[in-house]
């Protein structure tokens, strides 16, 4: 027995090496996230510490970085652009994805269900430039014709496109949330005479609420971060939108469109990186919140709700 415990044969080494490789893979996520943050932080630092006015950045809608005599860096219009497009996208995506998740999780069976799941995943794999193309060449003339708008590249167009883009991932996560609701709940409710719809409405959806909120938040995160499709479908005009038919410009699209034509290290360059930092913070917060919800609600609420269990089970 002792000898066996000490033997370092080939499989012992394979085991060790595999362990180290897997550990490196796990640590790399931390290294990358910290590295990226340091990088964009460093590039944006000069602007933040010198010419930066948080007030101007957050409250001024004037983004004129290339002006010769008086460049201004107000991101309000860009933030409003991203927010309005994402907001509309959620109005589109939440009913679609919730409906799809309920159908797949609670009604579809057997092969139909598997087929639908594969299709939803396929939908998530469509490149965003293709969605942008749909926005440009299909939605654009359609909006002009249906709403008699002068241009079809606007909040409405990019919101719908972004909603359709976000729906598949939201569907998948929402369906996971419904699947995590124990079947005994459904059985209990059905045995009490609840119809299938009552079971879903009164039991399954409330029980899966946290996961559904998380799905929506991840959709919002996706909307904030999406670049290409929004760049192509939003009209790309710096503008505080007052109606769905206004053209807007998103934070991401601004970075994508301007960074390549900016002198490295210039004030404009640094301002773009500051936009990047802002985006990073927003998506980080959203993902963090989504994670909190997936784990079962806000920590404060959980503690209050679980008090009896915690005291019985220290």
């Amino acid at each position: 027995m002792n000898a066996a415990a000490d033997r370092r044969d080939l499989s012992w080494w394979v085991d060790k090496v595999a362990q180290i490789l897997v550990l490196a893979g796990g640590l790399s996520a931390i290294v990358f996230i910290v590295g990226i943050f340091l990088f964009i932080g460093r590039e944006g630092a000069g602007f933040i510490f010198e010419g930066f006015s948080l007030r101007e950045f957050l409250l001024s809608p004037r983004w004129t970085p290339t002006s010769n005599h008086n460049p201004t860096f107000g991101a309000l219009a860009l933030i409003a652009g991203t927010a309005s497009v994402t907001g509309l996208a959620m109005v589109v995506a939440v009913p679609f994805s919730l409906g799809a998740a309920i159908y797949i999780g609670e009604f579809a069976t057997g092969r139909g269900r598997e087929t639908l799941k594969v299709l939803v995943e396929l939908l998530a794999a469509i490149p965003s430039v293709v969605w942008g193309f749909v926005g440009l060449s299909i939605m654009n003339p359609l909006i002009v014709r249906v709403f008699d708008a002068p241009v079809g590249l606007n909040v409405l167009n990019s919101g719908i496109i972004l909603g359709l883009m976000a729906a598949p991932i939201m569907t998948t996560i929402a369906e996971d949330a419904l699947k995590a609701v124990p079947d005994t709940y459904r059985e209990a409710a059905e045995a009490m005479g609840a119809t299938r719809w009552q079971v879903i409405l009164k039991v399954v959806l409330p029980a899966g609420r946290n996961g559904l909120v998380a799905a929506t938040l991840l959709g919002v995160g996706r909307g904030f971060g999406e670049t290409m499709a929004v760049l192509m479908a939003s009209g790309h005009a710096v503008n505080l939108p007052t109606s769905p038919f206004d053209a807007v410009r998103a934070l991401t699209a601004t970075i994508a469109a301007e960074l390549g034509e900016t002198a490295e290290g210039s004030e404009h360059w640094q301002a773009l990186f500051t936009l990047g930092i802002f985006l990073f913070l927003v998506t980080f917060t959203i993902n963090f919140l989504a994670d909190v919800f997936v784990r079962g609600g806000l920590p404060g609420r959980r503690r209050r709700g679980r008090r009896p269990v915690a005291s019985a089970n220290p």
Partner: protein
Amino acid sequence: MTVAPPRAAGATDPAAAILVEKLSLWYGDFQALFDVDLRVRAGAITSLIGPSGCGKTTLLRSVNRINERLAYVRTSGSIRLWGLDIYDPAVELAQLRKQVGMVFQRPNPLPLSVRDNVLFGTRVHVPDGRAPARAVADRIVEEALREVLLWDELKDALDRPGTQLSLEQQQKLCIARLLPVKPRLLLMDEPCSALDPAGTEAVEELIWKLRGDYTILIVTHNMAQARRASEECVFMLLGEMIEHSDTASMFLNPANEQTAAYIEGRYG
């Protein structure tokens, strides 16, 4: 299915709460019940005993048709509740299950507050399109919880999630939530098997107390429990009904050899 059964006794036999005739049931290709006949007396506690896999839970789950959640279940034969054929196409599942409450092996309160658990039935079966008013609802909750001896423990904790109670309290809550819609029949599938001895005793006492007001059909693995807590006893084996008599005589003097062997613990 026959339209006019040879023995239409159920319709005219007010003492029979459940009348099962020639019930066979298949899970896909596997036959779990073979021509089961059973007459359950109204107002009594009848226990179903037998070794694992003998079909007692299957039989129980046929009575409120909850078996049909599995799409691959087929049945033949008939089950009548107070003369009404539950497999009649005109029967509405919601109405059937309002009359027939079920208690499961594992306590399964809904992920709602204690109060909402008790009121769930009234909200599902809304008589005239409205849920009961607050005061009425309060009275319903109190009555139901008093009935299952939980009121004193939980009257200040009605907003706590039902899933966070002790297992014994959960199982009592699962019984309490059946009562507001006034079922006539309670089906219990090993209701004490997840509980500790104290909880078992408390729930058994509760079941005994409900006797008379409700007809109770209870599946149990625990022969001592069948002996303590039931008035009639049905022994099943391999999907067939072997023996049915009053509990005392089955345990003292079983008519069938297999019953005797099971009761003496020679198998199962």
